[in-house]
């Protein structure tokens, strides 16, 4: 049994070495992150829950990626967004003399640090730690279930791996999220991306989000006429449950300094 494992391991290593050598033969030596780079963007999403409220989110996000030697890299990311629920979906509007329809808003902030190892010709493995905070402003008094307050701190840990296979990238991410005073939430998301052209990526994803099926599709593009500095993505995802939640995501990201094609950016810069 042990020898069988050794054979398999040797075969895998040989295959990796072979493909690595092939890549090296084709291109100059590459690092996990070719150079330090910075991205900043706007994020927006619109989420609609069947027979309930819909809500819109708008915010800012940014990330900085840097090499750590040839094999490793680090990524620091952060975002802030605000979500506004459309209470008109569930509350009638009234010509009120003394009151108005109440609103519900969430303020979301998030920061994370990722460390990863990558061979641009093979793939990447990563580990992340992040902290988030969500605060709510809903009605007279609405609170988070686990805290009894109108704020919720979140810690999360994430491990992920992705493999590069020609114009395809396959990924898997496991996230363990710990809401303040709440039960740990586990999720696993698998994805497959295809680059029909160097600046266009189509990603299909699916997985298990806190014991609920989720799947989605996203298209990301870097228009060449923008000098490979601007990325635009549009996606749609579904959380499949009794009250199905459909979400449209849109983002525009500006990449400072690095003017490379999308596929190269994904595999050598972030």
């Amino acid at each position, binding site marked *: 049994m042990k020898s069988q494992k050794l054979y398999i391991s040797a075969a895998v290593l040989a295959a990796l070495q072979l493909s690595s050598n092939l890549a090296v033969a084709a291109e100059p030596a590459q690092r996990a992150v070719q150079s330090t780079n910075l991205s900043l963007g706007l994020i927006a999403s619109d989420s609609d829950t069947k027979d309930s409220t819909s809500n819109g989110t708008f915010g800012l996000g940014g990330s900085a990626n840097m090499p750590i030697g040839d094999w490793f890299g680090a990524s620091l990311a952060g975002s802030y967004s605000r979500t506004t*629920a459309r209470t008109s979906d569930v*509350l009638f509007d009234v010509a009120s003399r003394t009151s108005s329809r109440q609103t519900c808003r969430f303020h*979301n902030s*998030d920061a994370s640090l990722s460390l990863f190892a990558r061979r641009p010709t093979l793939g990447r493995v990563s580990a992340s730690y*992040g902290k988030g905070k969500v605060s709510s402003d809903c009605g007279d*008094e609405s609170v988070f279930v686990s805290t009894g307050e109108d704020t919720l701190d979140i810690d999360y840990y994430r491990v992920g791996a992705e493999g590069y296979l020609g114009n395809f990238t396959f990924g898997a991410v496991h996230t363990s999220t710990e809401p303040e005073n709440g039960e740990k939430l586990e999720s696993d*998301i698998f994805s497959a991306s295809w680059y029909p052209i160097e600046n266009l990526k189509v990603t299909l994803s699916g997985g298990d989000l*806190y014991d609920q099926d989720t*799947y989605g599709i996203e298209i990301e593009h870097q228009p060449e006429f923008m000098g490979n500095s601007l990325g635009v993505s549009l996606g749609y995802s579904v959380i499949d*449950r009794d009250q199905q939640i459909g979400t449209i995501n849109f983002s525009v990201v500006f990449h400072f300094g690095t003017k490379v094609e999308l596929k190269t950016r994904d595999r050598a810069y972030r």
Partner: protein
Amino acid sequence: MRLFLGEKVHYLPGARRVAGLLLCGLLAGCGGGGGGDDTAPVQVSTNAITFGADGPGAQTPAAQTVTATFGKDVVQLAVVHSGDAIASATSVLNGRTAQITVVPSAPSNVGPGAFLGAVAITGYTCADTTCSRMAAGSTATISVNYQVSPTLLSVAPYVETSGMSDTVILRGLGLRAFNISGVRFGDTAATSYTVNDAGTEMSATHPALPAGSYPIHLDSTNHIGEIPSTVELQVVDPVAFAATTLDHLPSTTALRSLSYDFERQALIAVTDAEGGSIGRYQYAGGAWGTPSSVANGYLDAALSADGTQLFAINQTHLVPVNAATLEQGTGIEAPSLATNSFLKNIVVGYDNRALITTSLTTSGTTQGYIYDPPSGIIGLNGVVLNNATPTMAASGAGAVVTQGDPSLTSDVLVYVYATSNNSLNSSAVSLRQNSVPPAVNRSFTRIVLNGTKVYDGSFNLLGTLPDTTAAVVIKSDGSRAYAFDTAAGGILVYDISADLDEAAYPALGPVTPLAGDPGTGVRMVLTPDSGTLFVAGSLRIAVQPTPAL
């Protein structure tokens, strides 16, 4: 091959096939999640609650609590509400249940009416793997119906004559908040009614009613249950007083005012006895009793709209006096009285607010007051008049106010006081008032000024009465004027229903002599049933059955 913005597509058919197979395998492995108790929708113990209040002055109804249950996936429970019916909606969590407390708005904040509200309870879940964004789960909605009933405050006149149909004014709040489909006096429906635009007053005509007490009810097509009411109309039988005279209080040399308490069959005379006294003459058992009295420098007194009090004034104060016992309440000083001025006359409207005029010892203008009994405040009314004399219509809807002094060289405007908004507005008529107070009938369709000039409700001059008229009153329906004529030595009756184009009205029939000479400074009162005239002056009070003309 260029497909997209001129960029090159590389064919890798073998790799793509492999990737597709892998992806299918990955996605196929994702199944099995979802459903179960974790994603149970938010559920509430009831989807509808109702509140009710007896009126805008009622206590706020007790809050109601609804229990909500929700699934494990809910991270945040949002409770939001809309609509005037709800003041607040708060939640207290306990595990996977929440107690939602819905507090209705204070009735005084929303006023009478039917109000709607809704409470939405939404369970928010994490929308991404790091829970950095919330997405709505299910929502449970509670509808809230809240009824604040209209309020009837008063009826004026509060006492009516049996066997006579007439129109009364009902005051209230929110009389347009519901569809009023009828008014009942006891079980007897009003023959007609109207509601003002503000929903604060109704004019309702009752048919002839026997003596008794009649709770007033409002019927509505959309009010749930009976509209609460504690207002009652008193209906009394008229008394056929015999002609007689009543002696003034000792040391009386002048009469200041005269009024009649129809409910209690009592005559109230304010005279200069003991510096200013109220004498109350009670009729009982077919005879007039010895007057009770109270002295406090009184100059005038008027019955409150509900008949419980006399609002009596002396030079500087208004004193509430019990209308039955003459027990005096605490006096309220008129603020900011002009130098050398004093309170002169008082009349009370159907809203129980009193108009008080002021006077100087010489000709000159001074500001009057409005007295508001609920607050106990006497406030300046913003209009300066010259020694003004008001007479309130029996309905309490308004008063005619004459002013001026014979020493003036030009006429001054006659004013009209409107009870509905407690305002004084000038009329189209100017004159210098004489010693004869104005007279006005109940429905304000006939007015006599200076005892001689007869006008309609729009102050069009219709005709005249003799200059020898010392006092005059008008029958409730405006058809007759009863004048005490010094030259004739008694009561003359005039048909003033017709417009004589400013000509003199001829007297109907012969003069009716009084049982005794009233003296000078005569004032007259006609009972609401128009059956008796009280004529009082410096010497005595004469009781005279109204001439049947």
